[in-house]
């Protein structure tokens, strides 16, 4: 069980460590980042969606006509597109699109100086420790609060190297040609119902361009946070790594606890031009009423490399399958993901990789844990096109089930149309054994500590890939999830 009363949970994406214990206890309650500020919206649209709402959002942002038109087309596509017939259909049917607010702006402008951000918003982010984290080690931060990015900065040296790191709205204003060239080029709005919805109503997200040959040495980071209830969050992220460049982008998400459901439906598009390397890491810990329906996809050109490192801990239903299209010869894809499903949660996660060119390689490592009746699914698709010679594919998916009522399913698909491909697939489902727990207990560790050790060990191949600070905090987070799990 998550969140025994009396336990103080200070760890949220590794950032909530400054809160005084009492304040934390009052503010947080069951979900560790579950406090919320009074809604402070400057502009808030009525609930529900129509072509007019879509046009209003676009007008309010002074967008170019082409963007308005894409939004409207995407809206009509969304309206006509049926729900997916896989994943968790009964949970999907519960989404009431008419009771969601599609645009909420709580600050008038994106601030460059942290002190200029309105105080209550600053408080929220202070609780999450964002400026502190930035000072310590991050190259840049975009903090998205509701729909608009309210605070944004980037280190000067990166600016001098020509790296662009903006929130998506500013990106569209300042670099309309770049955005027009790549927007919807990786994830067309027709891709699925939720990519259509995102394209219609998107707000915020990150826009990043790394020039040729530039290596961004430290991870750049963005935070997303849903504060208002019945709030949809539809950020749109576009990262372009030009030839021979590299970047590591880290994304963290939190939402306070509300009794009604929130919808998070993002689209992330990555373009790795020849020889470029993009790594995109996410540790998502939405509260248990959030639908997290996200489309993430990258295109890798010749000898480029795209890696998704994807951790899903919270949410009610997550459906997310980070994808890579290996378009250029010699390109490489990796998707490393973990999912933790607790009470009432379904994590339907996995990966998709399409080998379109020769000598391309890919690796999928998926780890899922289910506990307290939670349900974890791995849904994966790897394909090799007929023209793609000598491709190598490796898929490993492991599930760990912590108790009898929990569930794990695997839906792997491989479509290999070229016989020269070398494919490896391993899958395992295990339960924590009493003997393992007893062994660790005999070394002085309580049953909960023993379980946390086993779970963290299971996640180790994932945490190894995260920046140190995230890895440490993910381990702590999992240890907290194990609290009160014995009975």
């Amino acid at each position: 069980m998550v969140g025994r009363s009396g336990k103080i949970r200070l760890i949220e994406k590794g950032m909530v460590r400054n809160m005084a214990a009492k304040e934390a206890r009052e503010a947080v309650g069951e979900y560790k980042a579950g406090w919320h500020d009074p809604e402070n919206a400057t502009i808030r649209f009525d609930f529900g969606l129509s072509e007019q709402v879509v046009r209003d959002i676009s007008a309010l942002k002074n967008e170019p006509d082409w963007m308005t038109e894409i939004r409207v087309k995407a809206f009509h596509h969304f309206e006509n597109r049926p729900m997916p017939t896989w994943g968790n259909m009964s949970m999907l049917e519960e989404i009431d699109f008419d009771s969601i607010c599609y645009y909420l702006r709580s600050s008038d402008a994106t601030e460059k100086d942290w002190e200029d951000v309105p105080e209550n918003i600053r408080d929220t982010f202070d609780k999450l420790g964002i400026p502190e984290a930035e000072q310590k080690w991050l190259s840049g931060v975009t903090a998205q609060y509701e729909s608009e990015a309210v605070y944004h900065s980037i280190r000067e040296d990166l600016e001098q190297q020509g790296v662009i790191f903006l929130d998506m709205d500013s990106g569209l204003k300042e670099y309309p040609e770049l955005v027009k060239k790549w927007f919807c080029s990786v994830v067309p709005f027709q891709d699925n119902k939720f990519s259509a919805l995102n394209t219609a109503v998107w707000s915020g997200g990150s826009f990043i361009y790394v020039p040729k040959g530039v290596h961004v040495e430290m991870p750049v980071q963005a935070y997303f946070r849903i504060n208002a209830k019945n709030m949809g969050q539809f950020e749109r992220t576009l990262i372009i790594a030009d030839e021979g460049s590299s970047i590591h982008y880290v994304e963290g998400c939190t939402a306070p606890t509300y009794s009604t459901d929130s919808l998070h439906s993002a689209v992330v598009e990555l373009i790795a031009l020849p020889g470029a390397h993009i790594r995109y890491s996410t540790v998502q810990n939405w509260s248990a009423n959030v639908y997290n329906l996200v489309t993430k996809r990258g295109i890798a050109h010749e000898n480029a490399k795209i890696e998704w490192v994807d951790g899903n801990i919270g949410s009610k239903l997550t459906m997310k399958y980070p994808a890579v299209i290996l378009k250029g010869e010699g390109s490489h894809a990796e998707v490393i993901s973990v999912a933790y499903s607790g009470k009432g949660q379904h994590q339907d996660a996995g990966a998709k990789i399409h080998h379109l060119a020769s000598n391309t390689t890919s690796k999928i490592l998926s780890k899922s844990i289910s506990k307290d009746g939670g349900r974890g699914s791995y849904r994966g698709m790897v394909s090799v096109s007929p023209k793609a010679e000598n491709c190598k594919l490796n898929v490993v998916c492991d599930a760990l089930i912590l108790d009898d009522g929990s569930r794990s399913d695997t839906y792997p698909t491989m479509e290999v149309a070229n016989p020269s491909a070398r494919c490896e697939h391993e899958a395992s489902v295990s339960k924590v054994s009493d003997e393992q727990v007893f062994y660790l207990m005999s070394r002085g560790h309580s049953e909960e500590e023993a379980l946390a050790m086993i779970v963290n060990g299971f996640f180790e191949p994932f945490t190894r890939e995260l920046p140190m600070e995230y890895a440490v905090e993910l381990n702590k987070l999992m240890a907290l999830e194990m609290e009160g799990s014995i009975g």
Partner: protein
Amino acid sequence: MASDIPVLEIRNLHAGIDDTPILRGIELEIPAGEIHAIMGRNGSGKTTTANIIMGHPDFEVTDGGVQLDGENLLDMEPWERARAGVFLSFQYPQAVPGLQVGNFLRKSVAAIRGEDEAKGAEFRKKLKDSMTELDIDRSFLGRYVNDGFSGGEKKRFEILQLMLLQPKLAILDETDSGLDIDGIRTVAKGINAAVRGTDSGALIITHYSRILEHVQPDRVHVLIKGRIVKSGGPELALELEERGYEWLEEAEKSA
């Protein structure tokens, strides 16, 4: 510490699993600084005795008592027993993939001996010396606990834990199985170092006398069908080696 209280005292211990009795009235006392051996065939209740002292949840104690330094163990959870000073070297140590040996050792020392014991130069030196003594390579610390270990590596790792955790009572369950003669010598060195000249005690569980050539026991007890039927000095181990267990089983039957 000159104390009359034995490290381990077992009185009239009856225990079983799923209503099947396995131990039927064990009596055993290990004074401080002594090493005792329990010998017996497979199925005589040796491993069950070890598991019950450590607190394995599958077994049910139906009668009798177990005390460590005069303290009742049976009311404690396994980790409380470990913190009180019981250590079990497992016959089949469990693998925990992803849990690094170095990290695990530090955490275990911190849990049992206290945070201060698990950091600093002193801990590192103790760790390094113990590993040298057991002929364990430095790279071992980066591996995962018992994951892909050979039989010999597993046993050495158990003894490494014994040396670092410095328990009051060390129970060694079939520590000699799966070890070659060099391994047995190395492991025996570790056991002697952990017990001889200290206030600790050790209980060696085995069905061969091999290990007892290198760790001289003060007392040898023979376990048959859940009861200690004969106790004696180290010479009893040799006698068992020569004569087997039949003569004792016959005597037990006719008794």
